């Protein structure tokens, strides 16, 4: 469903600030696969998401979604394939517009927008139905401005908007990181439910190893622009947070050795 082949990306090439963000990343997702991506800061997790969403273009390599090569398409041109939830709860919704208007825009993702009324009675009923699944009571506040919602509510709404229109790929960018533990747990639970309900092929970046292990069907660890660990469902289910930390330490240890050798 999603094929990343030999993706490389260097920021500020040819300057003192040159940084190789991705060094030949190969990642292939089967339909319905739910991959969690972990890694330290600067490992290239967010860069990978930005490559898929089109915010960044790779220096080499290709991005193929469901057989369509989207490498050269701008972010808004490939949006019809991709549902996104951002880290910042404010980023995924338009604050001065109502809940139903936000949902109506999400429903039109990637379609040609004409002069039909954005929110109709039929759509409103559907939105209320979808919102009920969040169990936050938002179905009674369709006309409320999204800016009035709490961070957790906004993130739950973003998640619903990203999933209910049936994207081919769902991208989650540390979408629970900015929430308090209680709300993070709620959004995590909703993520599992919605991905399952819509059978979405999903890529989730997270800093939370617990979450990376409990959610999803496959786990990928990145370091220094490369994928250094790729666990299928079976091996993932046997892992603990301790094991993952151990893997991290192994890399850091190796790095230290290299440096010591050079000196």
């Amino acid at each position, binding site marked *: 469903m999603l094929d990343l082949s030999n993706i490389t990306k260097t920021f500020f090439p040819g300057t003192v600030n040159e940084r190789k963000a991705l060094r030949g990343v190969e990642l292939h997702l089967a339909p319905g696969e739910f991959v969690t991506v972990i890694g330290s800061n600067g490992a290239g997790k967010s860069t990978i998401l930005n490559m898929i*969403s089109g915010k960044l273009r790779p220096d080499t390599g290709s991005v193929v979604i469901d057989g369509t090569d989207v490498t050269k398409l*701008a*972010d*808004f*041109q490939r*949006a*019809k394939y*991709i549902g*996104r939830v*951002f880290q910042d709860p*404010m*980023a*995924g*919704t*338009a*604050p*001065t*517009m109502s809940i139903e*208007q936000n949902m*109506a*825009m*999400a429903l*039109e*993702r*990637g*379609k040609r*927008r*004409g*002069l*039909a*009324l*954005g*929110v109709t009675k039929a759509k409103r009923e559907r939105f209320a139905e979808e919102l009920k699944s969040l169990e*936050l*009571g938002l179905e009674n*506040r369709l006309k*409320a401005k999204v800016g*009035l*919602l*709490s*961070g*957790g*509510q906004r993130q*739950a709404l973003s998640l619903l908007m990203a999933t209910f229109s049936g994207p081919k790929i769902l991208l989650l960018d540390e979408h629970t990181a900015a929430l308090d533990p209680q*709300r993070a747990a*709620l959004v995590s639970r909703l993520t599992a439910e919605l991905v399952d309900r819509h059978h979405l092929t999903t890529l989730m970046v997270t800093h939370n190893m617990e979450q990376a292990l409990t959610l999803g069907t496959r786990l990928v660890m990145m370091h220094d622009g490369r994928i250094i660990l790729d666990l299928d469902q079976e091996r993932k289910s046997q892992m603990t947070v301790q094991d993952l930390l151990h893997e991290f330490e192994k890399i850091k240890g190796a790095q230290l050795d290299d440096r010591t050798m050079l000196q």
Partner: protein
Amino acid sequence: MITAVELGLIYAIMALGVYLTFRILDFPDLTVDGSFTTGAAVAAVGIINGMPPIAATVLAFFAGAAAGVVTGLLHTKGKINGLLAGILTMIALYSINLRIMGKANLPLLREDTLITPLKEAGLLGTWLSVATFLLVALAIKFVLDWFLHTDTGLAMQATGDNQEMIRSLGVSTDNQKILGLALSNGLVAVCGGLIAQYQGFADIGMGIGIIVAGLASVIIGQAIFGHRVIMVATLAVVLGSVLYRVVIQLALQAGLQPNDMKLVSAVLVVIALVLPQWSGFRKLAARLKPAAPAEKETVA
């Protein structure tokens, strides 16, 4: 005073255009000073050359829209700062407007215009003409309301609200800005065309400072009449435009010169922008208005 109300209702069309860029797209567009005169010039030349006045006014819309597209392209494709893009188009339009008109002032006194029927029936300056202009302003307001609630209109609102979000939903924010600027300057140009017909001439300087009048209408109107939903916000703009002209009229009656009016306009806008920030004013407003029912914050 009735004349002030008439003028306010005609200028409301321009203010609605300014509302579209300034409030909806969050883009302070200075093209307006040029495109207002462009509309007047195109309508006047069209009418003088025997076009039906209505067709000449529609043509003015497209001329203004073209100016808006230029500003939009400069800003989105040329990556020029929005204010500067507007200023550049405005300055360029000064020369273009002179080319269209051929000279700095075009009289329309002996021509048949959209205003002629009102004038000949002796209705100008009566409440009947006010009603006519009110109907026109409200019709345009309602079309704008409708547009902003279509799929395209929602995308335009979101473009001014959260660009990253609407791009992630597959909308080209560049195209939305260009479209918004086109519609806005189209409305401004129609207003320019109507004003030329109303006052009986088109003048190269008639657009100078018109953006300030537009901003004053939007800001004063929304400060007084509110802007919670689009329908209310656009109505506030129309009323704000009328209020602005009435204030100008009162300033004139108080003995100020017509040449002082640009200063009065600027001061009005500054007051409307600064006053709501002053804490004493906020307390007063809170006391005057019954407390709005606070949105209940349910725990997520």
